[in-house]
């Protein structure tokens, strides 16, 4: 990471998840200068919160390690974390972007030795684990975090805890007087890679996510299945810590529904099939382990069909073609009870499970129209491919609900679109 003076031959990448990292790296490895900004304290985005990828069941950390190594070796990418875009004005080849950097209270002297965390006892909800667990108020967001630099939570700044962290640091790395910083940069093209957020499950009232403890979302379940996650990888249900064996997945939770998200989020079928393998792996031949997948269509597109066939062959996994009508809770046990009609043969059911996972839909973290005046998005807020968007290009899930492989593919294309703009500027100025 080097110092950079942005010019209109610089590409700004907003968002440091896998799409933003990819777009930044692919452009920089073509020789371009890139300013990569990320709102949170470290890069990696939602991908770093996944335990495994479908269909290979490999670990996202592995590709992240390669990408961070590429970043460390590339002097053309300048990274700013805890930084957001507050305004964009201008036209293709000449954008003025206002940025805001929130204080980390830790400077570049930090060696990630961890002394500050040892000195602090207050805890904050762990955002990396979707607040399922807690983390110290002086923290490294996760063990593989890049940049490898701690964060002091604002809640302990100005308290004895903050002072204790400061005193514990032998490297003069803590600066409790840091203030938010606003500044402006000039860039030629913008790659918008702010990704997705899970649909707010509480809005799906019939499923009672806000009322029933044992109804959780797929992103929360993913953290639970990670050995470094909030339950140490154990499948313990939230209400009573009981090991969950009879597990339901509800597909299209929020998606394909005009009341919530009208699009299909594409990834949720594969995510559920993947997560069903976690359960199968946990319980081996345990006859009590059961997975029920309530679905409308299983969208295992292209070679993913192989993975679907594999899961279908598992006798512990049952597929029920049904849009679940509602969930009630059995008060004595806390078990969620799913009610609906199995449309294959029209059978009514009232099925009791230990745990119910909502395969939650994807919506853009930032809607197209929020980026800049006149930006074109689709009805769901995803950025459209549209010449009128000038040199602001979507990468990954900011433009479409995509899986990781397709996000990276799309981010690579976005990098070229940005390069075309800055190359035209360079040619004009040469």
């Amino acid at each position, binding site marked *: 990471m080097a110092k950079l003076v942005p010019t209109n031959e610089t590409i700004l990448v907003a968002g440091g998840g896998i799409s933003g990292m990819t777009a930044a790296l692919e452009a920089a490895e073509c020789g371009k200068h890139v300013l990569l900004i990320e709102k949170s304290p470290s890069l990696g985005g939602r991908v770093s919160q996944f335990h495994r990828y479908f269909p290979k069941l490999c670990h996202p950390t592995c590709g992240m390690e390669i990408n961070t190594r590429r970043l460390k070796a590339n002097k053309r990418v300048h990274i700013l974390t805890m930084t957001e875009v507050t305004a964009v004005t201008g036209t293709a080849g000449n954008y003025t972007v206002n940025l805001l950097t929130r204080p980390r209270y830790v400077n570049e002297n930090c060696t990630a030795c961890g002394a500050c965390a040892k000195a602090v006892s207050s805890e904050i909800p762990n955002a990396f684990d979707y607040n399922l667990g807690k983390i110290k108020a002086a923290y490294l967001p996760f063990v593989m975090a890049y940049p490898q630099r701690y964060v002091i939570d604002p809640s302990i700044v100005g308290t004895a805890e903050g002072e204790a962290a400061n005193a514990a640091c032998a490297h003069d790395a803590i600066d409790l007087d840091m203030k938010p910083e606003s500044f402006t940069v000039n860039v030629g093209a913008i790659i918008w890679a702010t990704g997705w957020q899970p649909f707010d499950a509480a809005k799906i009232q019939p499923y009672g996510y806000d009322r029933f403890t044992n109804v959780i979302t797929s992103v929360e379940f993913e953290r639970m299945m990670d050995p470094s996650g909030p339950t140490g990888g154990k499948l313990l249900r939230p209400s009573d810590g009981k090991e969950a064996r009879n597990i339901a997945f509800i597909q299209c939770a929020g998606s394909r529904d005009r009341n919530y998200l009208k699009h299909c989020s594409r990834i949720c079928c594969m995510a559920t099939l993947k997560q069903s393998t976690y359960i199968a792996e946990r319980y081996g031949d345990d006859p009590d382990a059961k997975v029920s997948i309530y679905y409308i269509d299983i969208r295992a597109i292209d070679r993913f069909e192989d993975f679907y066939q594999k899961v279908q062959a598992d006798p512990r996994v049952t597929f029920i073609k049904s849009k679940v009508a509602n969930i009630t809770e059995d008060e004595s046990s806390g078990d969620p009870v799913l009610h609906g009609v199995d449309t294959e043969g029209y059978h009514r059911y009232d099925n009791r499970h230990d745990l119910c996972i909502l395969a939650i839909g994807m919506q853009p973290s930032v809607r197209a129209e929020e980026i800049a005046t006149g930006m074109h998005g689709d009805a769901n807020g995803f950025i459209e491919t549209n010449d009128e968007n000038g040199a602001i290009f979507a990468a990954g899930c900011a433009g479409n609900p995509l899986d990781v492989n397709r996000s990276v593919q*799309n981010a690579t294309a976005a990098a070229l679109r940005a*390069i075309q703009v800055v190359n035209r500027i360079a040619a004009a100025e040469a």
Partner: protein
Amino acid sequence: MAGEMKLGAYICKGCGLGERLDCAELAKVAQKEGKAQVVREHDFLCHADGLAMIGNDITAGVNQIAIAACSRRAKAEAFTFDGVCVTRANLREGVIWVHPDTDDARETTQEAAADYVRMACAEAKAMRAPAGNPNRGGSKRILVVGGGISGLTAAREVAAAGYEVLLVEKSDELGGIARHLYRRVPAKEPFTEPQETGLAELVNSVCSNPHITTLINSTIAQTSGAPGRFTVEIASTGGNNRSETVGAIIQASGFTPYNANALTEFSYGRTLDVIDQLGLEKLVAAADGAPITRPSDGKPVKRVVFVQCAGQRSADDGRLPYCSGYCCNTSIKQAMYFKDADPAIDTTIIYSDLRTPGNGEDFYRSAQRKDITFTKGKVSTVTPTAAALKVDFKDLILDQDADIEADLVVLATGQVPNSGIDIETSDEAQAAAADKSILNLTYRQGKDLPQLRYGFTDSHFICFPYETRRTGIYACGPVRRPMDMAQAMDDATGAALKAIQAVENAAAGRAAHPRAGDLSFPQYRREGCTQCKRCTVECPFGAIDEDEKRYPVFNESRCRRCGTCMGACPVRVISFENYSVDTVGAQIKAVDIPDEFSEKPRVLILACENDAYPALDMAGMNNQHYSAFARIIPVRCLGSVNTIWITDALNSGYDAVALMGCKHGIDYQCHFVKGSELATYRASKVDDTLKQMNLEPERVQLFEVAITDALRTPKLIDGLVAKVIEIGMSPLKF
């Protein structure tokens, strides 16, 4: 780099190193045993002061640097000095964080630190700063093979970035399959109606672009060379052959519709009124707005049935096991051709899972509003009757057998990739298919891109979708994975970037992904080579050819710098300037081996630097302790592990050796594709050597490790040390 080598060793005392270790003692080790000319301790080496101190020494002539501090993964940017070799002794994550802070442990912890200092010094002395591959080639022109939607888009996008394009199309016309499409699936809000294909505009933009040269009626007769300097022989049906130089290649050879003649149960080929989706497009285009009529008797179609997944998602022989992904939307579009013309026409789509991801859902809803019938079912047969066709199917909702009459049946049959020759098949099979080759590569390992599954030339990596195993050659469109037009256009744009990146990397003499920017490249000592061909056969990227005397010919720009060739070479003549049999061998030799009666075994761990080594670092960050008798050396890939390292280690008194690398097999995780698999094979051959040395086979182990194995890797190490204690110390200590 000519001139005198001068080693500087720097011992950091920050992060608790100063408290836990006798750093003055380590400095002495660096000076006396590491033979460092400059040795300095610093309280906080990665701080600007520490870095300035090192910078001053570099100015004063230090050109080899051993940093004894944290892991090579930490503070990597700070400890990068241009033009100088840097090694790292991992005293933090690899020593003090993984050994307990107790009086009992102090001695073995210090010994581990001292060994890592010795190793870092020895490695630095064996390294040379690489200057980049001199054999670069300067062509930045991009060849696009195939003039369909993918190829046209790739050509347009490459040219828009300011690069020259050579576009080669086999047929006499640009446009590919899309030429036959009447309309395409919508790609814009409100995603409700079929839209114009836009092909004419695309073809125009390519044909009128002065940076694009288009050759039709032409195929690739031969491709040789490497990124930056490919020589391509182009054969034209007119006999006007030519030779061109290009820097990178985009293969957009597209797909062939599945041959529906195999679908006898659906009567395809038996009656003209059973057609595939492409057949319907042609029928609709021919009707040109007039009512769509039956091919058999010209009567208007009043009832049409679409059979989804025809010959797809099937394990049966000759059928496609995969889902082609685009056919649900296509059938919806085609049903609209009928409904939009005449709402009275019955249109029924029989499907098992309707797959319309993203905004395809709007298109699906639009179809429902147009009263297109969707039936969840599985079609068993289509039979011609006197006046119509009878479609028999299992209705999956009513759970009963049913049938429906139709004037026309459309089969949604899917895509078969045009990927040329499968280079994994026998020589005879490849020779028999020679005329199918797309690229006709002169490469030692075969004429076309390696295939992944079902003939697709897709990358195996989720995170790196364009990484083919042939550097500088990128596939896009339906040859890479089944896809629709919108995806193919996006895919072509991404491939265009990768091709541009490849020519830029080649021109600068540096490596492509995943060791992007690496300036080292393989070199070999011809006089020592025995022409055994292992390097040319085992290179996962087909980078090495053979000359007429069967000596290897390294094409540096095709090389990904994994070192598999170096690991393969039985006479050890292949090396990189900064990574060689010597750089690792010197580290192995540098470790101090206590005598047989010391009760201090030494276990060597050769760990993949991308996965196993970070897992061990994470163990350190989580304070997961493991035996202080282990000495860990990161390697570029297990494929680069030369068995001489294992036998040398055992001969010099190590008690055991473990290789830690990535999963191999069908879902391999090795970023160099074959490295961990080859290491497994080679390690299996070490058994014989162990027997000759009178050593137990348990002394060499190979562990498959994932990057998340922070809890497991310490247990593996401790298990191996326990095994050594059980079977006894090596008798080969001197």
